[in-house]
């Protein structure tokens, strides 16, 4: 029976992991092309569309770095390629660690970090990580068209449904933002959260007052960097 690292760091596994990642890249490229064509059909300002694309690329760089740290942190326990795959395709830090750890414990190991994990137990952990994560795209494949049809017809009927998406976003922020802003156990987090939030509002206000459209375009990534810089200053 092989030790898991012989499998986990093999070229075979690299190639197997590369296939879904390339498919994800292909899907993104196709959707970008479809989206661009759609914006032309809708007579949207193409300069703004390009700005939105640049903004998305710039913004996405920084939050990707902690994911790199997670990939590196998972490497001793899961080898080089599985963390790369799992955080590139449907991955999240909490999910990957919990799924792998739970599986290895069920096989009688001490969880992730146990150096004596066997090859089959490692493959089982990969089965569990991949097997459960497909629930997200699977639900989309089975139900999204139907659900989207319902949502679209409700939105086209006008009335309250026109404002419902905004209300849902507020609900989402009451779970993702508000608790962080009042988490008194983490004062640094509160300062970071409020710095970034106030910075967005201020940058947008300055951009309006001084007619600096570019400032408003990049207010989000700039505010995020200001929040993170504040964490360095006060820590």
């Amino acid at each position: 029976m092989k030790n898991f690292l012989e499998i986990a760091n093999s070229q075979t596994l690299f190639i197997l992991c590369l296939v879904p990642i390339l498919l994800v890249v292909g899907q993104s490229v196709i959707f970008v092309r479809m989206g661009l064509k759609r914006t032309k059909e809708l007579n949207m300002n193409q300069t703004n569309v390009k700005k939105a694309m640049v903004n998305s690329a710039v913004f996405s760089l920084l939050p990707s770095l902690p994911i790199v740290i997670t990939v590196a942190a998972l490497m001793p326990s899961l080898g080089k390629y599985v963390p790369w795959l799992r955080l590139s395709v449907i991955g999240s830090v909490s999910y990957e660690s919990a799924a792998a750890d739970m599986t290895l414990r069920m096989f009688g190991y001490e969880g992730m970090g146990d150096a004596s994990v066997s090859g089959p137990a490692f493959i089982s952990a990969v089965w569990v990580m991949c097997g459960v994560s497909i629930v997200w795209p699977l639900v989309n494949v089975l139900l999204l068209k139907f659900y989207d049809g319902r949502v679209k017809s409700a939105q086209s009927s006008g009335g309250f449904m026109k404002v419902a998406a905004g209300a849902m976003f507020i609900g989402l922020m009451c779970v993702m933002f508000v608790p962080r802003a009042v988490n008194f156990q983490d004062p640094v987090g509160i300062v970071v959260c409020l710095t970034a939030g106030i910075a967005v509002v201020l940058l947008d206000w300055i951009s309006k007052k001084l007619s600096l459209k570019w400032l408003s375009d990049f207010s989000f990534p700039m505010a995020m960097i200001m929040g993170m810089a504040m964490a360095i200053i006060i820590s």
Partner: protein
Amino acid sequence: MSEYNRKVHLVGRISSFLIIVALLGVPFLTSLFFKEEIDWGTTFAAIGSVLMVFGPVAVIEFLSYLPIIGAGGQYLSFVTGNVMNMKIPAATSGRKIAGVETGSDEGDAISMISIAISSLVTTAVLFVGMVLAAQLLPLLNSPVLAPAFANVMPAIMGALGFPVIVRDLRTSWLPALISVVLTVGLSYGTFMSKQGPMMILFLFISLAWSFFLYKRGQAQKAGAREVSERA
């Protein structure tokens, strides 16, 4: 459903299905290539245990995100993950730059493009990170930069949530107040450990409160019309 929407669903379904097959192919072909016997009983038991924890989260996310990021955005987000910390902020920021509404055709198109670009950037960064992990890790974990990376989520959520809450205080004050009370009352850790049920609760509260305000606004408009007609 328009021709464009039908195409989005066709491409989204086919590509998602292919990704599912490729993903399941990784453990399947690994066990074949390395001729390792899998203990299926324990593996399925582990899948069941993990599914019980994360399955409901998937269903809640499926229902919650569509009106905000559109179908194309959802197909993309659900195969790359990091929805709350990257895909929704990227889409929101993109819509703001293009000056388009959430839920509109224009908004859905911009959300889809922004999310796809975000996915491509993350995939590229992760590839570089995987190859250069040993060289990058000391820099990323340096004592100076560590607090910044430890606070990425508060920074993103602050930049995303603060303007949403303060710019529409009429709709947001009540759900935000309930969120504050629950976070302080239950503790932050308990609140966040129940993120799935909390999401359902706050979507309901926000929708119900917004509906109440909408109906009251309509009634007031009708009242004002009646008064002006009488005058």
